[in-house]
């Protein structure tokens, strides 16, 4: 998009040297062309680093267009997520792209834990490409999870920026809310009172969503506003799945990630349980400043 600064100037892709890596590299380049300027390809190996480097460089040259440049980094380590996080911090990366980072037979199990580590510990935004998807772009249907927080505002801003650079068919701003104890509080009253109270809550939440969208720059974007009650994370991920979304944009969580968060998953942890679409976890820090 001429005249628009890059949204993620430096993109880092984690490559596991699996059959999925070729598709991942190809997509990494396409994303860098659309949204960034510079691509770094990183690999963590517990084997021979030099051999791994040669193989990776070979794959890079096969999957990137002639003349395209990408920096290749190979680190001897078994901790893929940790390596990506460290490189991202050192080189001030703006976006980490990750797909299947482990052996094929462990994809389903490990991508969850690696994805969660990246989601919580990466110093920048993270785009997760599920292993069964060979293509990230184009994003035909983008769903972005919003609420009144700064982090959600950042997610909305990134989603709209993405939409300007690669216009989708639909950009859905989804406001999900849950009120702990609401059913219990309403149980003492009549059914009619309960209905009325729930309707009032729904209207108020819809008004807040409208307020949020009013203050965002949505000029010429095909935006749809959706407000739903339910478990945060679950509602938006189910909506994205049933709507056939290509990309779900959510605020990146910070801290935590331990056993408590895995047992009582909330928000992003729920989203990461099932990845049938790409997920962009937006971290405020690391977003490129733009001229106002």
């Amino acid at each position, binding site marked *: 998009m001429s005249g628009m600064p890059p949204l993620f100037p430096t993109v880092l892709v984690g490559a596991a040297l699996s059959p999925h890596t070729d598709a991942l590299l190809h997509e990494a380049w396409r994303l860098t062309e659309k949204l960034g300027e510079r691509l770094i390809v990183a690999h963590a190996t517990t084997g021979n680093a030099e051999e791994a480097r040669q193989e990776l460089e070979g794959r890079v040259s096969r999957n990137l267009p002639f003349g395209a440049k990408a920096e290749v980094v190979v680190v001897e380590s078994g901790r893929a997520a940790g390596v990506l996080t460290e490189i991202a911090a050192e080189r001030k990366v703006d976006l980490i792209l990750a797909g299947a980072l482990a052996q094929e037979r462990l994809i389903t199990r490990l991508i969850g834990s690696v994805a969660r580590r990246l989601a919580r510990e990466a110093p920048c935004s993270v785009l997760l490409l599920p292993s069964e998807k060979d293509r990230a772009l184009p994003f035909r249907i983008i769903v972005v999870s919003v609420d009144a927080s700064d982090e959600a505002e950042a997610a909305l801003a990134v989603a709209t920026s993405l939409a300007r650079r690669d216009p989708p068919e639909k950009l859905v701003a989804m406001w999900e809310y849950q009120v702990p104890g609401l059913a219990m*509080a309403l149980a*003492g009253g009549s059914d009619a009172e309960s209905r009325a109270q729930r309707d009032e809550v729904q209207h108020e939440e819809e008004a807040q969503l409208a307020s949020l969208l*009013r203050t965002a720059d949505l000029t010429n974007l095909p935006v749809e506003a959706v407000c739903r009650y339910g478990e945060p994370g679950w509602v938006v991920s189910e909506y994205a799945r049933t709507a056939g979304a290509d990309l779900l944009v959510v605020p990146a969580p910070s801290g935590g990630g331990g056993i408590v968060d895995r047992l009582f998953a909330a928000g992003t942890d729920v989203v990461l349980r099932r990845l049938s679409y790409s997920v962009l976890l937006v971290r405020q820090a690391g977003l490129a400043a733009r001229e106002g």
Partner: protein
Amino acid sequence: MGSLTSPEIVRLFAGLAILLGAAMTLGELARRVRQPAIVGETLAGILLGPSVLGIISPSVFRTLFPQEGPGALALETFVTIAVVLLLFVAGLEMDLSAVSRYGRKAMVISLLGIVVPFSIGGAAAYVWPDALGMGTGADPLTFALFFATALAISALPVIAKTLMDLNLLRTDLGVLVMTGAMVNDLLGWLVFSVILSMMGTATHGHGPWFTVGLLLLVLVVVFAVIRPFVNRALPWVQGRLVWPGGVLSFVLVLVFAFSALTEMIGIHATLGAFLVGIAVGDSPHLRERTREILHYFVMHVFAPIFFAAIGLYADIAGHFNLRLVAFVLVLATLGKVAGGYAGARLGRLHGREALAIGFGLNARGAMGIILAILALQYRVIEQETFVALVIMSLVTSVLSGPIMDLLMARRRGVRITDLLSPQTFVPELAATTLRDAIRELQRIAAERTSRPIAEIEEAIRRHEALGGATIGNGIAIPHARLANLRSPVLVVGRSIAGLPCSTGDRTPIHLVFLLLTPREDSLVQLELLAEIAARFEDEEMRRAAMRANSFSEFLAELSVTAATMPRGHERA
């Protein structure tokens, strides 16, 4: 097998009808005077119990509510089922992911909200067991632990209803209170189940550490087996079986089966029901309508009978000890309010809000009464202590709402006209670019807030990185949230010539609104931003704002349109 005789059946159903009818009537009356229904329901039982009916007409009392024999056993069975179902619906509302969502603040409030009253109650009961009515032959440690738990528990249904009535349920403060109460209840019931097992060692032969081990195993089974099973089964049950009957039956099967299992292994049936409630309530597949129906089923049939039946157990008049009641009430209130307050203050909430959280958590309601009845059945406490605990549970429930209301005097929604002053209005900006204009306004904001200008610059810069400050129509609203900001700050600057704009509709910027809001109030920023956007999307309003020759005229123009605009909803 023995069975009830016809007269016993008559007495049983007549007794149930009277209990339910009286509880329903007085519960409804309590609701109409904006008190928890439990107050009316328990009062109904007191009136029908030995304290009133038992004195007015002992023969009628003994006929309707026999104290022994098959009829008494049948009624006690009903009460036991009611207790189990009450714990089930309490578990249903446990949203432990809220602790994860709300982070450290919620955890600190939750933990201190239980640790402080637990410590105070346990210490008092250990030091003064006779004064607090320890049961004859009861173990002092068991009594101390029970008393500590009784003071540490909170009543989720009462708290939820109180918060809703005060319009606080959906506020940050309301969520913190609910989260704190949830953790209180979870930990409280886990501890109490160990205590009950200790009290039941004669029948099960388990020591306390073995019980703790069993409890951990039960927790693993619930989270590793039952919760995933419910997640898989619920969509099928709700979709394929007749609704709502099918899901009701399915849930009750789980409740009764797991209650039987936990009772069998020496952990009280109530905990089994509570944990099943957590597993079922945690499932995102549980429809809200199903949740409501489960609540209705329990709260309008079993709960009234249970709370009315409490009065049958408690001879209030005969065992009322004013000093003991006062002592228990003071201990309970002191512990809970202090714990909640301390937790909230550590979470950097202001004094009034912290106190409101303390009093919000103070309601003991149904949970306190259930604990008391179980302790009485196991002879851990005497009748006087039981009466004191019931009264404490009711009084704390009744007072919680009014005190919170006083502390959280509801503020009307904030408007931009409330925030403006001559000192925060710049009629003509000296800056010729938007960036410089923002800096100009930041200096004023720094003076108003007594905050370092670097902090404000950094906060605004982070927001600008998201998408710029312009919203079109020549309006820019650079904004940010600041931690521990007491109230919102708005600084307005005008540029007659217009500042160049390279984003959005590229209209030159004539009005810049620099807005700072408290980080702790997630909604006020949204409301104020929306108000600014809504007002100034009107071209006439923009022209009037630029025409104003003074701050007074500017404010007057805003105030004229203010009368026609709705306020943000009332918030804590």
